[in-house]
């Protein structure tokens, strides 16, 4: 949870790395997701074409975002969907609360929505005496255990079935202990059915909002999304403003990329397309549909031509699944709503570098995330840019909290490094000195950290520069 004052990344990392069960669960689950994605996209050439198409569609949408959002609002309104704009999460929470109060709702059934996590909606509602009920199975599990999602697609991925069995037994009254997955699912179903039937208001996220038709598209596998959006009298959808696309024909390639990348599915079990509340003469469906469009820093990202690419994201989570850091520390260690590679670029931009810039250090820049991103977000390049803005040597930072790491010591180190690498004389002296010191190099600073698990590098007594000269390599 984005509790800024208690975010201790180092402690989170150490805790996660000590948790063998967590690492085992994550590795197993990520392997399955990676394999499933590979199986659903067997033709590399086709996948690369599809990724380029996805990138082009989203770029085109971002290029005309203000117009598309207005068009979306106009068409939704025409269809009978009430559109609300929220500049920040406090406004968004206020809008949802107001709707709930107007309908005297004591609770709300929720489909999976990362934007609602971004809003910290459940806590906000709890403080206002309204119970939020997570109905996605993974979300249901972690809500019982008072946890937050550790993955944006599979929120309880850090738990194995034995742990789920224990949670159900402990937290749901009169539940016998069982590790049988079908029985566990049936228990959740039994509990949730009653809540669906009783709730006046349901909430969902949005995967794509189609401007030309005023349609909200929602994918899911459990049917809980359809329940949340059709059973209660009121449906509230929340979305980040980057979810809008221009045309209905933009959706098939994006949908293919989303479900294939996220869960390795050709298509999800349910694809909901919501265009209006219940019309007169219709027997079911909500009587009211609301759409809350959240900015929360997104329009600031849009203003920068490089950072804007963060908004291409379709929240498939495949960058998490392929990340060698995520698979070892899990989602909670990142201390914020969006973990993994996408979180490393999204969170510092939302919360400010001074609050969350440290996340950008947790990457070896191996490039695995950029390689698989379905819309070709150059995540490593954006991580590098955030690192640059963290020091903001030239005063050009655009992200909030830029320059928070600026310090004389590091600046001097890199200035010295730069000088030595431009002066052949200094460079030669440095290498020779290190060569002479050999194993006697003092293990302080970086070398101390390096040698915790490794022997120190052996600097050669004769450098390649000297060898090349001595052994007659041409030097024109």
């Amino acid at each position: 949870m984005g509790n800024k004052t208690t975010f201790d990344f180092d402690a989170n990392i150490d805790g996660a790395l000590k948790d063998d069960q967590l690492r085992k669960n994550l590795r197993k689950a990520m392997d399955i997701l990676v394999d499933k994605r590979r199986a659903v996209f067997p033709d590399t050439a086709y996948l690369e074409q599809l990724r380029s198409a996805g990138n082009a569609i989203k770029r085109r949408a971002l290029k005309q975002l203000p117009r598309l959002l207005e068009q979306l609002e106009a068409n939704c309104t025409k269809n009978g969907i009430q559109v609300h704009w929220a500049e920040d999460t406090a406004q968004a929470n206020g809008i949802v609360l107001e709707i709930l109060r107007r309908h005297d709702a004591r609770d709300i059934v929720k489909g999976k929505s990362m934007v609602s996590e971004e809003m910290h909606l459940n806590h906000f509602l709890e403080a206002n005496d309204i119970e939020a009920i997570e109905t996605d199975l993974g979300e249901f599990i972690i809500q019982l255990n008072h946890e937050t999602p550790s993955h944006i697609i599979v929120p309880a991925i850090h738990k194995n079935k034995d742990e789920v069995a224990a949670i159900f037994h402990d937290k749901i009254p009169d539940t016998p202990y069982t590790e049988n997955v079908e029985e566990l699912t049936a228990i959740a179903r039994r509990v949730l059915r009653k809540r669906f039937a009783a709730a006046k208001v349901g909430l969902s996220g949005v995967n794509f909002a189609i401007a030309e038709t005023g349609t909200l598209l929602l994918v899911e596998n459990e049917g809980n999304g359809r329940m949340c959006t059709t059973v209660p009298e009121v449906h509230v959808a929340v979305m980040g403003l980057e979810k809008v696309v221009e045309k209905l024909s933009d959706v098939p390639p994006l949908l293919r990329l989303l479900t294939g990348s996220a869960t390795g599915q050709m298509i999800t079990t349910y694809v909901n397309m919501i265009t209006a509340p219940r019309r007169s003469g219709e027997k079911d469906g909500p009587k009211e549909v609301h759409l809350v469009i959240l900015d929360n820093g997104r329009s600031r990202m849009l203003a920068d031509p490089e950072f804007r690419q963060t908004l291409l994201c379709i929240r498939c989570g495949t960058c998490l699944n392929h990340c060698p850091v995520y698979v070892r520390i899990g989602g909670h260690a990142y201390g914020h709503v969006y973990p993994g590679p996408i979180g490393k670029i999204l969170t510092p931009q939302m919360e400010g570098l001074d609050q969350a810039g440290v996340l950008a250090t947790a990457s070896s820049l191996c490039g695995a995330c950029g390689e698989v991103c379905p819309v070709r977000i150059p995540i490593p390049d954006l991580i590098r840019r955030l690192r640059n803005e963290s020091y903001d040597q030239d005063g050009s930072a655009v992200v909030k909290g830029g320059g928070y790491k600026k310090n004389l010591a590091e600046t001097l180190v890199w200035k010295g490094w730069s000088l030595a690498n431009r002066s052949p004389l200094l460079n030669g002296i440095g290498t020779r000195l290190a060569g002479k010191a050999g194993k006697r190099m003092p293990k302080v600073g970086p070398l101390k950290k390096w040698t915790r698990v490794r022997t120190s590098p052996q600097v050669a007594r004769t450098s390649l520069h000297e060898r090349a000269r001595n052994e007659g390599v041409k030097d024109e």
Partner: protein
Amino acid sequence: MPFTEAKVKTMHVRNYPEQSETAYFFGTCLMDAVYPDAGMAAIKLLKSKGVKVVFPPDQSCCGQPAYNSGFTREARAVARKQIHVFSKPYPIIVPSGSCAGMMKHHYPALFAGTPNEAAARRFSERVYEWSEYLATVLAVELEDRGDPLTITWHSSCHALREMNVIRYSKALIRQLKNVTLVELERETECCGFGGTFAIKQPAISAAMVKDKVADIRRTGATTLVAGDCGCLMNITGAMEHGGVAIAGKHLAEFLWERTNGQ
């Protein structure tokens, strides 16, 4: 769908020039200080194939350490130095996928909008990873003179994802008739080096290299071969620290030894 055309595009295959009489060698800062034997082996192999190798003495580092750490200005200054030093139109051969990736793919971005942009682009076009140059432009045929040996191979992330040259490195290894290559289970996963990442996030880096060493041990190989000194320093350092008796060698040194009966 025009399958073949798209397929070729996906493979990022370069158009390789005819062999140039003279070629530059960029020794990389790590080879210079820690792995000069590998550097000399790389040079000697090129020379043995008839390439006149030039080693400009004023060369230093590609600039990546600063670039990846948030010190773009310092990186640019060092990169500019390399562009000046390697000014003749010879191909620039780099025995590291990571440094080659920096010089080939990041220099154009690093100098975008500066007076050096055009020069940086021309420079980048001349950059080749060492095994790539041997396997394509030189089309070398290697004769293995060593004893039977089981090895494993570590793919550096930037050789794999930026330079896309792993198939060339492996093709060279597969020419050695007495060498059995046992591949890693997670060959495409980062070893945890990441330059300053190993220092900025030592605990995560340590967990990554520990898993890499375990993967290497499972192959039963007695030698680990890699094409990047950064990874090599990280992995062999961890193996030595953990008392794992597996030798680590840069591809250039390994190939030179095998083809010269050492």
